[in-house]
Structure formats: C-alpha cells, structure tokens
C-alpha cells in the first residue's frame, strides 16, 4: 500500500492538484513513524511510510496546514476522517485546501504489546490475514496474532468507513463495524463507588501532566487551552494549587464531550498508559443512552448533544437512580 500511496502522491504533486503531502515519516526506529509534510517526490521516496505503526491521527495537523497557501494532499484513515469531519463541523479546517485520499486501515499494532511478547529489534512488519509477520535484527521471524497486539483504539474500532474524501485509494469504502467499546465502561459502572474510586485513583495518580493527550487530541484544538489562559480562572502554570492537577482530566473530557470522535489517540500517546479513552467513552455512552445515539464527525452536524436539548430530557437525578452505576 505504501508504494501505491507514494505513486498517487507523486501524480497529484506532478499534475499540480496539490503542492505538498501530509503523511507519515520514518522515525529512528520502524515503530516511531510520525506525521509529516512532504514537498517533493524525492522527499516522499526518502521518508514516506505506511505500515502497521502509522497509527497517528493526522487530521489535527490540517488545521495549521489549511491556513497556509496552496492545497495539501492528506491520506486519511477511517478514524482520521471522522476527526477531520468533526473539525469541518467546527469550521476549524478549510475543506477546499485539502485533497483527501481515503485509505483503509485494518488495525495498527501497539509496540508495547509486541515488546511484551519478548520481541525487540524489529526491522520490518508485514500484514497478513489475521497476523503480523515481524522480522528482527536477530534474523528471527515472528508471526503474531493481530488481535493480540492491536492498539486499544483498533481493538474496539467503531467504523471502517471514510466519511470525507476526494478519492479512495482502494476505490471502495468500508462500513461501520460492530464493536464492544462500551464494555469496559459498563464494567466500571458495575463496580462499587469504592472500587471505581480505587481504580481511577490508581490510574490518574500516574499522570505526569505532560499534556501529550491534550496535544494529540484532534478535538483539543483550542487556540489557547483554558489551562493556559489567565482569564479562565483556573490557569496555573506554577501549580499554585492542585486544582488543575486533580481536575484536568475531568475538564478535558467535558470539553470534548459531544465532539470526541473516540479516535483513541489520548490513550495511545499516554506515556503512563492511563486509559483516558474510558473517560471520553463514558460521556459518549451516557449521551447515547440519555439523548439518543450520536457519533461526532459522522456527518455534517450543527449541534451535538451538549449544545442541544429536549424539553423532556431526563433530570440530573437520573444518574442516581438508573441502573448500571453500581451501589
């Protein structure tokens, strides 16, 4: 697929449709491919990658890119396309300045999970039906079940559909897939408050406030984050109080409620492996249950559940009485 993408990118550069390409660049290691912009065919040949590790969501980068002159080519995976669509809904990206080639994604690999299998020094990774085939410097070849090493976000993939594109690399679009992404949330809901508190205290105490989750999140695109804004009343660069420390994740989840497409980037990038997606999914689950199913970024949407209402909405007391939240 990488070769086909590079070939198509070259064509589009050559015929002047676009003047640059948003994709993924080789890192120092095979598994640290990062989003990057390529300006020429040479650059593409030298660095463009597409493999089982190009999980990063590139849509957020397009906010800045579409502020620039010229048109950019972006390869969007299904989950990237949801984020991009949501950014369009929020007028954050200029659709006219992006030429989108939709690319399929059959699940990306989590390097941590591969390492846990005792495999290091990877030199190549190939996808095969149901398996990843990995070669290492020690000239070993490992065949790993894909599902075992999927990223969390890919394990619970919500859709293979590309919701916004100019062309599809494969010519075919995917569809929504059944998933059990709310199971973990439901499991937590079924616990007692004490257990839940213990769980979250354990998870959140590890947070080092590196802001990786915020910086990667395609919904967290504020010009300036409230936590950096002296007028918001809670800015605290010098950590004068522990407020931000304690509340950061709740407020962040609240701010993206209704806009989070559940792309799972927050959990992917967290160096402390905090399952941050469980906070966002809790909101999504609640909104689906209380206000009707809603998928951010799925279509052109003016309002989301937090910016709309019905006069017969449930009263806030409902959360104390409805089932599934433990005793």
């Amino acid at each position, binding site marked *: 697929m990488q070769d086909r993408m590079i070939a198509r990118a070259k064509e589009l550069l050559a015929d002047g449709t676009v003047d640059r390409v948003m994709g993924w660049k080789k890192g120092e290691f095979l598994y640290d491919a990062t989003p990057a912009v390529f300006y020429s065919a040479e650059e593409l040949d030298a660095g463009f990658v597409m493999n089982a590790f190009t999980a990063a969501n590139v849509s957020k980068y397009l906010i800045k890119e579409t502020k620039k002159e010229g048109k950019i080519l972006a390869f969007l995976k299904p989950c990237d396309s949801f984020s991009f669509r949501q950014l369009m809904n929020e*007028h954050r990206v200029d659709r006219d300045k992006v030429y989108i080639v939709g690319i399929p994604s059959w699940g990306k690999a989590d390097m941590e999970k591969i390492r846990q299998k005792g495999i290091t020094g990877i030199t190549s990774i190939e996808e095969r039906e149901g398996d990843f085939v990995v070669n290492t410097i020690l000239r070993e070849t490992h065949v790993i079940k894909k599902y075992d090493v999927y990223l969390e976000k890919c394990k619970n993939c919500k859709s293979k559909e590309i919701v916004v594109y100019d062309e599809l690399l494969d010519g075919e679009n995917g569809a929504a897939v059944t998933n059990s992404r709310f199971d973990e949330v439901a499991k937590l809901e079924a616990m007692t408050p004490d257990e839940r508190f213990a769980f979250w205290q354990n998870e959140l105490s590890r947070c080092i406030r590196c802001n990786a989750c915020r910086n990667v999140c395609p919904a967290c695109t504020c010009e300036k984050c409230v936590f950096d804004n002296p007028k918001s009343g809670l800015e605290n660069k010098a950590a004068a109080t522990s407020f931000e420390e304690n509340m950061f994740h709740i407020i962040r989840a609240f701010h993206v409620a209704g806009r989070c497409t559940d792309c799972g980037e927050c959990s992917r990038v967290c160096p402390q492996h905090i399952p941050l997606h469980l906070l966002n999914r809790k909101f999504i689950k609640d909104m689906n249950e209380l206000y009707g199913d809603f998928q951010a970024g799925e279509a052109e949407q003016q309002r989301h559940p937090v910016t709309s209402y019905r006069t017969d909405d449930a009263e806030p007391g409902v959360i104390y009485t409805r089932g599934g939240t433990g005793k």
Partner: protein
Amino acid sequence: MQRIGVFVCWCGSNIAGTVDVKKVAETLGHEPGVVFSTDYQYMCSQSGQDLVKDSIRTYNLTGVVICSCSPRMHENTFRKAAASVGLNPYMVEIANIREQVSWIHKDMETATEKAIILGRAAIAKVHLNAPLIAGETPVTKRALVIGGGIAGIQTALDIAEAGFEVDIVEKSPTIGGKMAQIDKTFPTLDCAACILTPKMVEASQQENINIYAFSEVDEVKGFVGNFTVKIRRKARYVKEELCTGCGLCTEKCPQKKVPDEFNLGLSNRRAIYIPFAQAVPKVATIDPNYCTMLKTGKCGVCSKVCGVKAIDYTQKDEIVERKYGAIVVATGFEPIKVDKFEEFAYAQSPDVVTSLEYERLMNAAGPTGGTLLRPSDKTHPHTIVFVQCVGSRCDEKSEKGKPYCSKVCCMYTAKHAMLTREKYPDTEVYVFYIDVRTPGKNFDEFYRRAVEHYGVHYVKGMVGKVTPENGKLKVQASDLLDNRQLHIDADMVVLAAAIEPDKSARPLATMLTASMDTNDFFTEAHPKLRPVESPTAGVFLSGMCQGPKDIPETVSQASACAAKVIGLLVKDKLVGNPCVAHSDEMMCNGCSQCQNVCPYGAITYTEKEFRMPDRTTAVRRVAQVNPAVCQGCGACTVTCPSGAMDLFGFSNNQIMAEVDAICK
C-alpha cells in the same frame, strides 16, 4: 490593587439583631484591599447613601461592598449612589446578609461567621470587577404594526399622534379587520362600521401613518431599535396610486361568481373587487385565481373601462425593505373551522351558520341587505337556536376544539339574540349555554336584558345533535335544570365558534423569535406586569394575538402597547445591560458552539487576520457578540471550550474567586 470600602448595614434590628455587625465590619476591614470598613443603621437611607458617597470620595475607593439586604432589593440604589460620585456603578457588589443570614439563622455566632464569609466572597469578586459601560445603540424612530384591524389601527394612530412614523402592514386589500365585518357592538349596540370607519379614514389621513395594504412581512432581521424588515407588496394588478376607487370596473367585470370573503362566502363578488364600500385604501384588486384576463389572456374589460388607466396585468410582487425601532404584532384572530363538529351539521345545512356569518346576515351592508333571511331558501326564520362554546373549553387533547374560553361569545350571542328578538318579535330564540360569562362593565345587565326584556330562552344545557330534515333543523338538546331532553324544530342554528389566533401568527413568531404558547397566542414578557410586550425586546403585542379579548379591551391594550412603543421610540439611544458576553478573539476557535446555544442569535462570526507567533499572518474565524442583543445568560461561556467567551459582571474568574473565598 483595588481600594475597597465595606459598608455593613444593620437594617435596624433586622440584621443587627442576629449578626454582630461591628465584628463583621471589623473583620472584613482586615481583608486585603479593604481600606475602609464601617457599619450603619440604615445604609439605604439618604444618610446611609451619603456615608457611602463620602467614603468613596474621602478614601478614593475603587470598589464598594455593601453587606445588606438582597441585591434584588437595593443593588440599583447603591449603584446609583456610587455613580453619582463618579465611581463606576458596576464596581459595587452586595453581600446578602439579611435574606441569606440574619433572617434565617438564629444563633449570633453562626450568623456572624456566615456574614463574614459572604462579605469575603463579595470582596473577592470586587477585586476582579472592572468598570463596565453599558453599550448604546441608536433607535430607528419608526414603528411597524403588523395587522390592520382595530388593534393595529389604534396602536398606529396613538404612535403617530405622538409624532412617530408608523407603517401598517395588512395582508388583505383593506384595513379594518374583523371589526369591519361585525354589525353591532355589545353592550352599547352602536354600529361597528360607524365607529370603526372614521378611525380607518383617520389612519389613512394621518401623515405619519403609511399603510401597506395587501402586503405581508417576508423577513425580519436585527434587534430592538434596529429592525430591518422586508415587506412583500403583493400584486393587486391595479396601480394603487392611480386608482380612484370609483368602482366602475367592479361593476363591469364579467366574472361574477367569486365567493365574497368579506361576506364569508354568503354572497358573490367580481374578479376585480373592492372588499366593502368604506375600504381603506379604497383601491380595486384583481383576484388572479378568477380573473379571465390573467388566466387566459382574453378579456381586459376592467382595463377598458378604467378612466385613469390604473389596471396593470403585468404587476409583480414587490419587496420593500424598511427599518424600524419597534414592531407591534396585531395579527388578530379567526373563528375556528366548525365543520369538524359533525353533530352540528354545519357542512350539511346552509342554515347552520357561525356567529360571524350571522353578523353578516344581520348587517345592512351584508348579503341580505340587513333583512334576516335563511341562507337556504331566503325565508324569514321563526325559530333560531344559538349554541355557545362550540370548540371552546374543550379537553386539552381535543383535536377539534380549544382548551380556553373564547371570552367574547357569551356577549355576542346575547347581542344576536337580543337584536333578533327586537327586530323580529315573532321569532323564538333559544340560547344553549354551559355558563354565561359576563364580567365587564354593563355586561351582565345586557345579558339580563336579553332574558327579561326580550324574552330570549336561555337553556342550561348543550345541543347534542342537529339533523336537517324537510327544510327544518331538528335540534336535540339537554335542559339540565329541568332534567329533560328538548327537541326543537329550528329554522336556523347559530354556532358561537371558538376563536383562534390567525394562521399567519406562527410563521411570524418564528421570524420575530417571539415566543408563543401551545395555542399559538403570543406570550407576554410578564403575564401580569408586562402584558403588552413580548419577551423579545422591541416586539410588542396588541389585541387578540395575545389572547381572546373584546373590542374595548383590544383598544385599551392597543393604546397601552402604543405607550410602550412611544416610550421606546422617544429614546435616542438604548442603554443596554453591560453584563453581556464578549469573546476574546485571540482565543476564539470559531467553532460555532456558542452560536448554537445562544437563544438570542447575538453571536455572529467574522474572518479576522491575526499575526501568528512565527510572524506570518493567518485569517481566523472568530465570534463576535452583539451587546445590544445579548441578554447575558452565559450559556455560551460554558459551551466555549477555550474560555474565550466570558461574561461581564459574572466572569469565570470572578465566580471562581467567590468559590475560593467561600471555601477558604
């Protein structure tokens, strides 16, 4: 750093009886930024206010905290006092230590402690207060009245006489409305036309009034003081400025079979017509649904006979755009459709009529020239049955009727019954009623006169069935007081149909963003205290569009409405509430979420150029709040993820500071 003065009020013993005011003043005096702190018996009294003013001057105070009664009581008093000595009124904060402390807590120690905490919170807030200056918007000194019935005419006349321009938009070819169709008015029985038509003429001659008849409102933009309205002047196919209203065309037009809506279809008119003799403007109108010339291109009689060449078959709808400072809704009412009530056989027999049709049958200018004749065979009816509450006072879930009392039916039915008996004493008149409701000056006397002097048979009960049979109407009804069922062979049945708001009201309300109740009546800003204003600033209500009412009430409301409009138009500028939302453009993402939750449409977006950190410039979409439209609810501030949207007077960090002060 602010220089804050704290003033603790005793409120006689109301506060001082439970709160140690000295201790409160003393303790708050040590708070950072507080340069002066004192207590006084009655802070709201003249001398109390003088104390505040003097202290502001003496200590150069930049902020004032009054620990007293509820801000809902005296916030304005103290703001004015501060303003009088040059301190911005929004630098005053009130700590409510009466309603929230002294009146509900009995223990001196607890109460004093709480008073101090509330004082601290107010001080914390004042530290972050900034002087606010209320925005001013100019006022377009012209009013629009939508609807040219008696309500609209009266409102327009009153506004015009105060010296302001008024435009009346009326959807039908003439002003006058429903009152023009009515024969006599209760309880004085003067002729409706005799009192209405002079007003219509007055409206047309008053130089400040401009009548757009046969026109409709297409679009409303803007806000209080600054509305821009698009008015659609529907094509009459007659040049209004040339037509003299001689009526020759309406006599010569060969198309004679057009149901006359002014007579509710009880007679016919021509395809070119003037609704009635006293129409204002008295201009002919061609009905394109019936005009042979417009339909087939063959005829042109009216054009030939017109001496002033006023006929123009090519006329098109024309859009006029006008600016207004205030909009008056006077869209009125119409009777409900009664054919859904099958039991009354309205659709089966022409002799079953509605009360408004009965008005036309009684009217000297009506289809029968004022002689009461049955529509079916044009004979004189001898037995007439009136049925009240047809479609009024129904169950809320009813699909046929309305849950409310239509208010005017009892009186006009009494009027019909009385007039019928007066003119035709050989007629037996029955009125079936559930209750007879006659609150009003000389109303009950009027009803009693119908019964006692004119011998109208009032029967407590309801008609259950009307069957047309051999030219008669068999009426089956209950007489609850005699506990029997009545069977009357009537010649005519008159239904007192419930009234409902005009159909045009709902789409108009949407254009005006004015609220309506479930029955499509416009809602008032306050049902008791602001009954002629809509909650939407600059929109006023006149007449039946707000709820059922009779002519005297309609006229009083119309004048009241005019007074409110004049009160708005005399102002050169509107001073807004400065506690409105504002967006920090540097931080705004332009995501439109605030726009989605704003109930007033106060937020718009513009593209602005910004310098980026890397010295390039970029165009960003940013929110802008119209302070004249914003009412300061703050819905946008919570929706805004970046905190770019904030509210003056209740800013994020002011409220945070209060929280912190309370939770210290």
